[in-house]
């Protein structure tokens, strides 16, 4: 059972590596923000799955702030692109 979770962890790690190529190189800033979104969502699942795999329940605390932070990044970048400044 836990070996299959390890395989899923490796799948997520490969996906994060592929996303980070776009995040570093992407043609426009929108693509980079999308890739950073996808990296964060994959990292949330990676953290929860590794807290199951390593039997460390306190690892999973970090998942909620990560999921909240990426929404703030989306809103800030969208506002900056639309108006030219972050506003108040």
């Amino acid at each position, binding site marked *: 059972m836990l070996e299959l979770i390890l395989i899923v962890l490796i*799948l997520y790690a490969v996906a994060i590596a592929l996303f980070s190529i776009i995040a570093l190189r992407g043609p426009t800033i929108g693509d980079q923000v999308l890739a950073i979104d996808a990296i964060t969502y994959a990292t949330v699942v990676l953290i929860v799955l590794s807290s199951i795999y390593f039997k460390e329940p306190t690892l999973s605390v970090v998942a909620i702030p990560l999921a909240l932070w990426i929404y703030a990044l989306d809103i800030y970048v969208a506002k900056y692109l639309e108006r030219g400044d972050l506003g108040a």
Partner: protein
Amino acid sequence: MSRSTSREVISVLEAIVTLIRGVGFALIVLGGIASLISAIGFHRFKNFYLRLHALTVGTIWGCVYPLVGAALFTITFEELGAYRWFVAGVSFVTALIVLMLAPAGSHAIARGVHKSKTARVQPCLADLLDKDLCG
């Protein structure tokens, strides 16, 4: 209650636990595959607006469903002790947060990119909002 009926009840409960664990595990494996598909889609799609589709595959199939699956799996995972309810609650709440916030965020970023004309609609059939971005 006689001994045979209590044994039947115990076997039914064990079947339910096995079912919950199997469903959770299937959702986790599905999430891993969907996340890999989303990563490949990021490289194969041509422009920003098509990559939004790859992002949403990686969001709902690759994040919400495996988190619900992890919640179902940890409920039946005895080796974590009493902390398994904690991990299950955290992953369920995170799944709800992602389910609410991820579509709002991707709509906001798509609107911002289209209004600021940052990304062009490169293989273009029609762009009814702004004809200059086409082609």
